[in-house]
């Protein structure tokens, strides 16, 4: 009896495989919990936000007003500067993470004493909460009581108002962002570098190539997939960055370090829920318009290799 059931079961599953279901590693309903979570927490709110961006919404009630929120959003006096700042922030943090991340990764994959310890040190800031980092740097960079300017003073230099000088604030935050996010970039590059077979370098050495030539002709082309990942991750993160800016300057002094994200947040805080939702849709479009071509370009190059 038992033998027969086993046979039947085996037969059934064999039949199912021939019906083509076997292309899925798991039964379809295994996907259901994830699908429900995705729908409820991501897909539905995303589509709902498209609707709410077309309303005047007080949380208590809403009124459909067409595209008025979008018109109003683009009329915000500080939006233009916020937009420029967003681009500066996104591209500068991304570029610096690529350059410094690769340099550090090369250093940390070499036969350096204590490199495992140094890898942990560089990765450590990634683990700390962004708000915590922001508050910490606000204290460190205080123009009068902060230890950074205190240290500069002992060298006879009067430090600037890192976060309070309108011309400098954005760049100070960019520096903090790079410090905090470098660990991820470095980690991705280390993984990429370790995957390059050492034979290439040995062959190059036999051919008499200099260290720089080996880096340029072997390392750089072969870490291109890692570069693509670093650029995409850091650029998306930079373009929609908000938390670090909010924790350090709140977009100030005045509006001088405002980015699109902080402009939206201020509208949300003021209770303009429809308007800030429209801003988020705009941000979504901006990030998409910038990222899709870059992502396509990076992927295409990868295939060509």
């Amino acid at each position, binding site marked *: 009896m038992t033998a027969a059931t086993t046979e039947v079961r085996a037969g059934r599953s064999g039949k199912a495989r021939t019906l083509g279901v076997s292309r899925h590693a798991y039964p379809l309903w295994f996907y259901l919990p994830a699908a429900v979570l995705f729908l409820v927490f991501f897909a539905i709110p995303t589509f709902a936000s498209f609707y709410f961006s077309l309303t*005047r919404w*007080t*949380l*208590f*009630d809403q*009124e459909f007003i067409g595209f*008025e929120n979008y018109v*109003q959003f683009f*009329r915000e*006096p*500080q939006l233009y500067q916020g937009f420029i700042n967003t681009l500066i922030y996104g591209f500068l943090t991304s570029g610096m993470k690529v350059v410094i991340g690769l340099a550090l990764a090369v250093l940390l994959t070499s036969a350096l004493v204590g490199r495992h310890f140094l890898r942990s040190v560089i990765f450590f800031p990634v683990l700390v909460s962004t708000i915590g980092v922001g508050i910490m740097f606000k204290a460190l960079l*205080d*123009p*009068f009581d902060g230890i950074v300017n205190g240290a500069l003073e002992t060298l006879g230099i009067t430090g600037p*108002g890192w*976060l*309070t*000088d*309108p011309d400098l604030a954005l760049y100070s935050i960019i520096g903090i962002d790079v410090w905090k996010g470098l660990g991820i970039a470095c980690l991705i590059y280390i993984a990429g570098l370790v995957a390059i077979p050492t034979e290439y370098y040995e062959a190059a050495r036999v051919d008499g190539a200099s260290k720089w030539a080996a880096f340029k002709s072997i390392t750089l082309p072969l870490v291109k997939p890692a570069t693509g990942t670093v650029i995409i991750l850091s650029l998306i993160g930079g373009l929609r960055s908000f938390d670090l800016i909010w924790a350090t300057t*709140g*977009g*100030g*002094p*005045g*509006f*001088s370090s405002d980015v699109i994200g902080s402009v939206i947040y*201020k*509208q*949300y*805080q*003021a*209770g*303009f829920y429809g*308007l800030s939702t429209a801003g988020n849709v705009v941000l979504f479009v901006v990030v998409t318009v910038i990222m899709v071509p870059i992502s396509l370009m990076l992927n295409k190059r990868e295939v060509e290799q």
Partner: protein
Amino acid sequence: MIPKTSRRHFGAGVAAAAAAALALSACSGGGDDDGSVEITFLSTSDEDNTALAEALIDAFEAENPDITVNLDGRPGGTEGDNLIKTRLATGEMAEVFNYNSGSLFQALNPDQNLLELSDRPWADSLTDDFTSVVSTENGLYGGSYGSSFAGGIVYNGAIYDELGLEVPQSWDDFMANNEQIAAAGYDPIVQTYGDTWTSQLFVLGDYANVHAQDPDWADQYTAHERFYADEPALAGFRHHQEAYESGYFNENYPSATFEDGGAMLAEGSGVHYPILTTILSSIRFNHPDAVEDMRFMAIPADDPQHTSATIWQPDGLYIPNTVEGAQRDAALAFVDFVTGPDACEVFIEAVNPTGPYVNGCELPADVPPLVQDVQSYFDAGNTAPALEFLSPIKGPNLENITVEVGSGIRGAEEAAANYDRDVENQARQLGLEGW
């Protein structure tokens, strides 16, 4: 690898957290069989206010042994605005909460969310000014939480005496005083943009002067007929720019905080601080010896006959209309107590009022000089409410715009025009006519 002792502490922590969670879930149960009721009072979580709220709760519970009031804290400023709106919209609001009166109160959609309170015993004892800022056309929604206060220039009277200065009546007199103060080696004007809200006082504290020149300004502003970019309202921005350009600010103005400002004033390194008189609580807490030196003057207008003091109304005390049954009765009893005459003593002891009460409580006879200064403006009839109590419009970015003016990033006229544009969002959100 965790050492044994700390592991035990960790375990104790978990147990404590679990117990706290149980206690919290018990709270939400509300009325028990033995007739006792628990309600929650949501209030701002700064030090001064927590002490006040605890004192009020103790006094209330002593008279009402069946009612337990739990205190819940919230942030102030725009973060707090957001929290209040979200909790009201989701029906998660505490049984009683205090919040601004005036324009921020209007944004809560009171008719839909709050309990009407005009049948309470204290309703008739409220001043007309206060009643108007916690009411809609459909009713009265708030009890009073504290005393009114003024916004203008808080100054160090000891240094005024030392230099033999007189209280300036016009803006030019004020700048002349500043020149003498600077020559004596003090910082004439204290500015603290580390707390951005403090930068608004040159503009907000000037409103009584605008009102003195044109009492209809607020109504016409609400109707989108008057603008900050035009005189007389532009004066606030213009004076702020002038003060910045004269170089009279303390050196660390970009990063100093409200508390730093109080310390500079109390220690005498700074002399004029355009701020709310509530700063006296902070000075009393940190520099009790300096309280007698603190004085108040209205922000001087260009023409001395317009110089008047701008007055802020106290917070309202509200009950959401989702509260029902025994909890509603308990919440009403708490509001009756706090707004009624029995709580006068508690307020006077805990907060040191800096302006007259709005519910019939009397100020004590021996108030500090600063409060006497405020009172003298009332006695002379030279006061007007702040704009936020006369118009529902207050743009969210004013504090950033005034930081721009006070840091030399933007001139007064452009900044005022930007602010006129900033308030458009608020006016449209409220569905006002003419915007």
